């Protein structure tokens, strides 16, 4: 490892009074919104899962039908849980990294209201109502289900996010460049602002296979260029902040960043392998998927090496343990993704529960673990906030157990479905064979929901933080040589 410059050896212990203004109320507001929506979205997910095993359950109400609840589930996780969680952490991270407050407090509350009461809640309401007007109707497009009117507000929200969180770094000259978390934050925010309309508006105006090519882009950009950059920004922040040591290699983190932003957007078409989309595009996407898998090895290596010799810290500090586990899931899910993009594998596993297992490993394993670690980490550093370490610890183990049970049963069930589909067996055989796995998946909701509730208890119970002078890293110095 290249030795970092001398300044980085003393990641400075900063007293709170030297910190630029941090908007703790916004951290709290976004965190509460995040955890509450996480729970509600998980309930929607549980109902969707239960309905596969008990199809008559709550079957008489349009708003509680399988399709609508599935929209609620994924859009709730995307906007409500992950969006709010990212923004909460940004209010913690940005002032510390930019050495100035976020763009504006007022804007902050505007974003909070817009995101939750202009996008999330009306989005859910419109899904439940099922209106017909083209601008108010549900869009049957993955990760783009909210009606197009809501999409306009979401784009506005993303624009304001760029101003709020990228703004400080543009407005205040950053001597010697900025820390890797900022790269991910700024890159992800700008990219999402551009990519969001591609998935949400373009397929409504470009038909069929041509529209599907754009849908494919967004399906992957939602995960790859909104969720992943924010999550990695959190991970890259929390590790040095908790361990008080610089990350393993700034050079590797730069390489990882540029490869990720280059290859990730080129992955999208791998959702439509063996489709009518031109084979050149399919193959390009598959190749990009493999490169992305290799890049993630690099990123995860860099992150995990930053934690070498820190096993005790990872074991004792629950937020850091969330992050560490999330990185492990990131490595697994990305290698799995590269693997299942390969044509022979895709041919077998596509359309099956294998893919549902994969997406839960990504969104619940990778993204949720690190976002939860981020909220807990920031929360511990809010003056006079309560924090219950035991509840957080239980939450960690329950969510881990629930996720693993869900992932294993979905993957196994998916393989059973896939092999039955490739055989001459009648279709219903695959449904009947899935039921056992679907029941196990239902059971996985118990530890998951319990974990989410305990996570919430971790934020509202326990002792209040005694003082505010929590150790805080300065990253600029560590960045100087990069």
């Amino acid at each position, binding site marked *: 490892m290249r030795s970092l410059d001398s300044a980085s050896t003393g990641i400075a212990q900063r007293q709170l009074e030297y910190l630029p203004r941090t908007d703790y109320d916004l951290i709290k507001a976004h965190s509460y919104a995040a955890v509450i929506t996480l729970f509600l979205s998980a309930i929607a997910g549980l109902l969707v899962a239960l309905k596969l095993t008990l199809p008559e359950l709550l079957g008489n109400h349009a708003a509680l039908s399988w399709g609508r609840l599935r929209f609620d589930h994924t859009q709730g996780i995307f906007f409500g849980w992950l969006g709010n969680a990212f923004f909460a952490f940004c209010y913690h991270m940005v002032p510390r990294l930019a050495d100035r407050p976020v763009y504006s407090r007022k804007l902050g509350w505007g974003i909070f209201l817009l995101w939750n009461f202009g996008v999330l809640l009306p989005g859910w309401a419109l899904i439940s109502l099922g209106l017909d007007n083209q601008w108010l109707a549900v869009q049957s497009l993955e990760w783009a289900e909210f009606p197009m009117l809501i999409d306009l507000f979401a784009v506005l929200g993303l624009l304001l996010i760029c101003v709020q969180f990228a703004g400080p770094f543009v407005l205040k000259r950053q001597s010697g460049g900025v820390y890797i978390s*900022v790269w991910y934050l700024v890159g992800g925010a700008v990219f999402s602002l551009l990519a969001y309309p591609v998935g949400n508006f373009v397929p409504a105006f470009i038909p069929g296979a041509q529209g599907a090519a754009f849908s494919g882009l967004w399906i992957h950009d939602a995960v790859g260029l909104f969720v992943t950059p924010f999550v990695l920004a959190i991970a890259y922040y929390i590790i040095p902040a908790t361990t008080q040591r610089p990350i393993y290699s700034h050079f590797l983190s730069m390489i990882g960043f540029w490869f990720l932003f280059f290859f990730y957007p080129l992955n999208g078409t791998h959702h439509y392998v063996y489709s009518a989309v031109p084979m050149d595009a399919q193959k390009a996407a598959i190749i990009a998927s493999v490169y992305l898998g290799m890049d993630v090895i690099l990123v995860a290596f860099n992150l995990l090496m930053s934690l070498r010799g820190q096993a005790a810290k990872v074991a004792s500090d629950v937020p850091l343990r969330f992050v560490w586990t999330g990185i492990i899931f990131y490595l697994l899910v990305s290698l799995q993704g590269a693997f299942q993009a390969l044509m022979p594998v895709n041919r077998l596993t596509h359309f099956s529960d294998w*893919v549902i297992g994969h997406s839960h490993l990504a969104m619940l394993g990778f993204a949720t673990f690190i976002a939860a670690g981020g909220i807990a980490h920031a929360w511990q550093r809010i003056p006079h906030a309560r924090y219950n370490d035991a509840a957080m610890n239980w939450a960690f183990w329950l969510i881990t157990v629930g996720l693993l049970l869900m992932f294993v049963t979905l993957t196994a069930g998916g393989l059973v479905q896939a092999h039955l589909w490739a055989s001459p067996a009648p279709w219903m055989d695959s449904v009947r064979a899935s039921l056992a796995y679907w029941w196990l998946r239902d059971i996985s909701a118990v530890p998951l929901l319990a974990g989410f509730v305990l996570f919430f208890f971790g934020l509202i119970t326990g002792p209040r933080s005694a003082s505010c002078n929590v150790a805080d890293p300065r990253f600029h110095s560590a960045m100087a040589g990069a």
Partner: protein
Amino acid sequence: MKTANRHRVFNSVYLVIFVAGIGFFALSFYLLGILPGQELQKEIDARVPADMADYTAQEERGRTVYGREGCGYCHTQQVRFVAEDVARWGAPTQAWETRFDYPQLWGTRRIGPDLARESGVRSNDWQLTHLFNPRFVVGDSVMPGYPWLFDGDAAKPTADAVSLVAYLQALGRPRIVSGYHDETAPAPSPMAAEHADSMDTSTLAARRQAISAQARLDAAVPQFSLPDNPEDYSVALAAGKTAFEQNCTACHGVTGAGDGLGAASLLPRPADLRAASFTSGRIADALWNGRYGSSMPAWRDLDNSTLAALTVYVQSLHTSQALPETAIGESAVQTATLFEKNCSSCHGATGQGDGPAARSLAPRPANFQLKQGNPDYLEMVLRNGIPGTAMPPWEEVLTDQQRHSLVRYLRSLYQPSAQE
């Protein structure tokens, strides 16, 4: 200050914004969005039939309902260029077929089957009943019902439900009317040719025949090997019972009386399998080809041994009934004349269901050589007709005696094979 400002341009935040954020976005947008789109446009222009019809307003409305209810999250509309997909559903989905799909509804998950080739596979009644409550027609289905698309009853669909079914019946229709559709040899597309190695055409053809579920008229039925000794017979009977419970009871009822959950909203009603004896060939044909014009789908996706077992089991459901000892009203000659005058235009001179009018009727008129109704059943049919088919009631036309005699005559036409 000037220097600082100039440096700001090269500050890495700008690099991230303009290269990673905007540049790489534009690159992917062009490489995987615009470029394939242009290529697809060329392919569509080259292959689309000149007169390809857009969705009707009703179908478009149904499409909106399909999207709103999230149908596309369990049903794909995308037959991939791989043998197993083609074997199950038919020709792969081509770009030109989707040119009116705003937005695309390809889907990425299959819990239920693909619907890209759904046109005509099942009757409207079946589709509506299935939408009201899928378990009324598919016992083990896990699909949700959509009762809010109905006025409280599967037989009372709202405009939304009717539109949705119209849309389902339009899926794959452009290909059927395009001239590309060819049962035995799907037109090779550029992509299929490229992946010829993955399309094992010989096994493909065999399985294609076996699996595609389109109800058909008069297609050749493979010879099922029926049990020829008591031991095999009892094994087949048990297997047939299981298969019947899994696949048939939803409509035909547990006892086969045609009174299953789905029966009330299907026209014609599911057959009462107790009220007639069928030859094994007749049952095999109904299983293999479905009953075109009724809600009986084809069951070619079941393997042949299951179909043979079902044949045996359905035959076992028949409860025979002796002819009532009534005075013979009409002479044999008179009855034959009666049949010729009133029945033969549909049922044919020899009662084979092949009269001059039969070709245009769906379902086809009964073939009395292969199906022998119980006297009560035939009396009932002669009195009331069969709603949902071309069979009219004869109560006003024929006297009681004439109908009694006809029942006797129809039963005498039955020609089971020696072992039956």
